[in-house]
C-alpha cells in the first residue's frame, strides 16, 4: 500500500508539473461539458419555465417524464445517440460519431432534463411569490417568463452547475459515442477508464483527483452563490 501511495504521488506530481497531453485532455473535458451545459440551458430553461408558468393538458405528465429522465442511465443515452449518429443511423450522413460534437450531444441529452426540472422548480416557487404582483403591474403570463428567469438567476446558475457536474463526471455515454480516441475524443473520465483497464491504478486515481478538484471548485462556486442568494433572502424576511 505504501508503494501505491508513492506511485500516486509521483503520478499526481507528473500531471501537475504540466504534462501537456494531460492538460489538453482536461481542456477538452471542460470544452465539451461547458458547451453541453450551455446548449442544455438554452433548451432546458425555457422548457422548465414554460412548465412552471403555463397551464395546459399533459403538463403534469411532462413534469413526471422530465423528472424520470433525470435518472436516465448514461449508457442507454450513449447507445441511443450512437444509434442516431452511426453511419447506418438516421443522422449518419453528418459524420458526427467519434467527434467531440457527439459527446456534446450525449451530454446535452443527459443534462437538459436536469436543468429543465430544476428550472421548473425554481421558477414555480418564484412565480407563486410574484404572480399577483406581476399581474397587478399588468405583466402577462408570457411576459413574466423573462422577468422570472432573470430574478431567479442565482438559483438557475446553481442548476447549471449541477448539470455541469453531471456532464463532466459522465463516462458511460461519452465512451460509446466518442470512442475515447486519443487527441480527439479522450476526456478525463475516459482516460481514467482506460488507465484503470491498463492496471495503472495510481495514474487513474491521480486523474480522478484532478476531476475531484474541478468538482470541488464547481461546488465551491455553487455554495458561494447560494449563500449570497440566501443572505439576500434572509435580510428580506
Amino acid at each position, binding site marked *: 500500500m505504501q508503494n501505491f501511495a508513492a506511485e500516486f504521488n509521483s503520478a499526481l506530481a507528473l500531471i501537475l508539473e504540466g504534462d501537456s497531453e494531460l492538460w489538453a485532455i482536461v481542456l477538452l473535458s471542460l470544452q465539451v461539458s461547458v458547451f453541453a451545459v450551455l446548449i442544455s440551458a438554452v433548451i432546458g430553461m425555457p422548457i422548465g419555465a414554460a412548465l412552471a408558468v403555463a397551464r395546459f393538458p399533459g403538463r403534469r405528465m411532462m413534469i413526471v417524464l422530465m423528472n424520470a429522465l433525470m435518472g436516465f442511465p448514461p449508457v442507454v443515452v450513449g447507445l441511443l445517440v450512437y444509434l442516431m449518429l452511426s453511419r447506418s443511423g438516421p443522422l449518419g450522413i453528418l459524420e458526427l460519431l467519434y467527434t467531440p460534437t457527439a459527446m456534446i450531444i450525449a451530454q446535452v441529452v443527459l443534462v437538459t432534463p436536469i436543468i429543465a426540472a430544476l428550472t421548473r422548480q425554481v421558477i414555480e416557487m418564484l412565480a407563486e411569490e410574484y404572480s*399577483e404582483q406581476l399581474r*397587478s*403591474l*399588468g405583466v402577462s403570463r408570457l411576459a413574466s417568463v423573462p*422577468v422570472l428567469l432573470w430574478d*431567479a*438567476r*442565482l438559483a438557475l446558475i446553481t442548476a447549471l452547475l449541477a448539470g455541469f457536474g453531471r456532464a463532466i463526471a459522465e463516462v458511460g455515454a461519452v465512451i460509446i459515442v466518442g470512442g475515447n480516441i486519443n487527441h480527439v475524443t479522450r476526456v478525463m473520465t475516459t482516460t481514467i477508464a482506460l488507465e484503470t483497464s491498463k492496471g495503472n491504478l495510481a495514474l487513474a486515481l491521480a486523474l480522478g483527483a484532478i476531476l475531484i478538484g474541478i468538482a470541488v471548485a464547481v461546488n465551491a462556486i455553487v455554495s458561494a452563490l447560494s449563500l449570497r442568494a440566501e443572505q*439576500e*433572502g434572509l435580510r428580506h424576511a
Partner: protein
Amino acid sequence: MRDLVSDMTNCLRARDLQVRSNGKALLDVHDLTLDGPGPTLILGPNGAGKSLLLRCLHGLISPDRGQVVQDGTPLNAYHKARQAMVFQRPVLLRRSVAANLDFVLKRQNMSRTGRKDRIVELLTEGGLEDKSRQSARSLSGGEAQRLAILRALALNPETLFLDEPTSALDPSATQMIERMVLRASSRGVRIVMVTHDIGQARRLAADVVMMQGGHVVEHGPAKQVLDVPGSEASRRYLAGGLVT
C-alpha cells in the same frame, strides 16, 4: 356627457359580487359604490372578505357572479392599467431599488432620461434617495413597503389599492406610509385600503366600509361609521378593536 362626468369622478362600483368556494360564498357584496374624494378604508375581522373584495375590484380575481363597474362600464384592461395595488407583504424584484422602479417605467415606454428623472423624483417622495443602488431585497420592512408604494405610484394610477400595508410595521414606519398615502390621495389618486387598525382608519379615512362574513355591513362617512356604528356587527368589531 354622462361619460365625461363619471370620468371626472372616478366611480368604482361592485354590483351583486359573489366569490364562492366549495359551495360557500366567501364574498357576497350586493352593491358598493366608491365615488367619494377621500381615502376609503375597509375594516372587518379576519375572514370578512376584505382582501378578496380588493382583488375583485383590481381584477386579480374574477367573481363567480356579478361584476365590477368602473365609470359605468364593466372593469376592462383599460381600467386595470389605471389601477395599482400594494400587497401586505411587499413583493420586490430581486434587483436594485432603482431597477424595481425602472421595471415599471420601462413598460410605459418612457425615454431613458425621463425614467432617470422620474426615479429620482419617486425615491425622494419615499425617502429612499440614498438607497437607489442597494438591492431591494436588503431593505427593511418599512423601506420595502415604501418602495412597493412608489412602484405602484410609478404607474400613475387613478386608483391605488392597499392590502394591510402596515400590518407588519412599527409605528414610525407606519406613519411614513400613511403620509405617502395621504399625499397620493391629495393629488387625486383614489385610495382603497384594507386595515385592521381602527386608529389608522380614523387617521386616514374619508369613508369606511365595514365587512363581516363576506358581506358589507355598513358603508358611510368615517366619523359616522366609527363613532355611531349603525349595525351590531360594526359595534362588536369596534368594541373589540378598541380593546386590543
